[in-house]
């Protein structure tokens, strides 16, 4: 998902999606989400905030969940629609900003994954969803923790998407700072017929949650959101080593709404 003040460049989401599908181990991640949910909720409906191109949502649908995906980016939703149609997955889509009052109610499970939102904004989302959650509902989100700090040499990667049916390459690079990881993904594609080269970019800063913030969060001292208890915090990188951008590990946080 994009930070509220950013917009994807026209036509770039298709390639961002290819890159994510290649690296983010969605199958393993979905296995884990299903494991968390199945022992905690009886309903099979899920609302996924910032669903993007629905890589996770279509996988959850295949596992028997009825998923509603909400995202404000129409470009992402168009790719999501294609994916849903191709896979005949049961996912409903709503084009909507998750920082506005949400157009759903009586929900027992809400996801906010790969949002790359700072923790303060995640808290805003939690306040925003409070009204739509039933008692005992589960809210799962992720944050990224820095495993190596400022001064590290930047990491650069080269990917080609030929094997994924696209005449395109991606050159990307990531640089760690104490407050976040700057990522620049540059996509060069060749138009069939003319051979003309096209240039697209996606660049963002992935906010980093400091270990101290997370441990405070874990012991519920400063989380600042009442009415929830923490069910658990897990490091997915143990089973999905590439679930996070370079220099980061992904932490999955599960909250339960108290009655």
């Amino acid at each position: 998902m994009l930070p509220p003040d950013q917009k994807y460049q026209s036509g770039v989401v298709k390639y961002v999606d290819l890159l994510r599908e290649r690296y983010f181990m969605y199958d393993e991640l979905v296995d884990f989400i299903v494991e968390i949910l199945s022992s905690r909720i009886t309903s099979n409906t899920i609302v996924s905030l910032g669903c993007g191109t629905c890589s996770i949502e279509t996988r959850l649908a295949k596992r028997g969940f009825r998923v509603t995906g909400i995202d404000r980016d129409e470009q992402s939703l168009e790719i999501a629609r294609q994916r849903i149609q191709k896979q005949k997955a049961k996912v409903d889509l709503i084009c909507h900003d998750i920082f506005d009052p949400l157009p759903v109610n009586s929900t027992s499970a809400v996801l906010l994954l790969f949002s790359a939102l700072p923790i303060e904004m995640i808290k805003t989302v939690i306040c925003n969803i409070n009204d739509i959650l039933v008692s005992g509902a589960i809210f799962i989100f992720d944050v990224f923790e820095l495993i190596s700090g400022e001064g590290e040499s930047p990491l650069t990667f080269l990917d080609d998407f030929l094997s994924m049916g696209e005449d395109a390459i991606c050159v990307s690079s990531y640089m760690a700072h104490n407050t976040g990881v700057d990522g620049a993904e540059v996509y060069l594609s060749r138009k069939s017929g003319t051979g003309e080269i096209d240039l697209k970019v996606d660049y963002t800063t992935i906010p980093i949650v400091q270990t101290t913030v997370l441990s405070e969060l874990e012991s519920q001292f400063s989380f600042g959101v009442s009415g929830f208890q923490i069910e658990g915090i897990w490091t997915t990188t143990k089973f999905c080593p590439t679930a996070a951008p370079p220099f980061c590990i992904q932490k999955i946080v599960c909250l339960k709404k108290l009655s």
Partner: protein
Amino acid sequence: MGQEHWEVTYPQGIMRYIEYFRLKNNQVEKYDTALAKYIKTHCRSSGFRICSLGCGTGEREIDLANRGFEVVGIECHEESVAIANQSVVTSKANVDLITCDILEFDEIDKILHNKKLFDAVIMIAVPLSIVDHARVVRHFAKYITTGGMFVTGLWGYTRDIPREGDYASYIEVATSPTKDDFAVRLNYYEYTGNIIKWDAVYLYRDLNGHVRMERDDDILEVTPEQDGTDPLDTDEELFEQLPTYRVTECHPKMLPPYVYEYLIGWRKK
């Protein structure tokens, strides 16, 4: 060090795009806070007249003018001066721009000989060799008033000097100030002792919408800070060396990996 002189040049037409990266990385306001403080702390002359050598597109000079300095900027790259002139007009800043190579001393003398002396001559982020840095300080001494100073920004390594043949590479994206255009830069830095060779490949969409690629290269000479030693070997009878100041105000991404910038100054006796 072998090579003692190299030219600073740019491929035609890319300054507009280089500027996107400068606006993003240079953090001129933060840097100038340190620079202005350094000048005010050490300058013993009464005026506020600055000459900025290698002023590029004039962002720093406009910022310094907004801080109350009267600024003369000298730059040889015509495309940069054109951009700087435009910005000066727009900002109505008290900046006078001169197109001249700062190493063409005869030309410099023709231009400056009848101008009022400066309280500070500065040379910030100009990738000249250290030998040329020293030549510039020596030459411009005569345009500095007594008690005035020469300030230059030099580079040091943040950790042990990278090994021979070490390199770093990464990609950056920067947008235009209006956010409706962008450019991509692939950076490649090769470290050999105190010399860093920087290759930059720019990918951008030109004004006709065509994707273009241009290569620019620079050489940065790193000068480790050494207590009591003058890296430019300036004339002790003419100048008193001032303490160095490590610029910590800016985010480190403004510089190549492993590099930091410090200010070093000399006060005219």
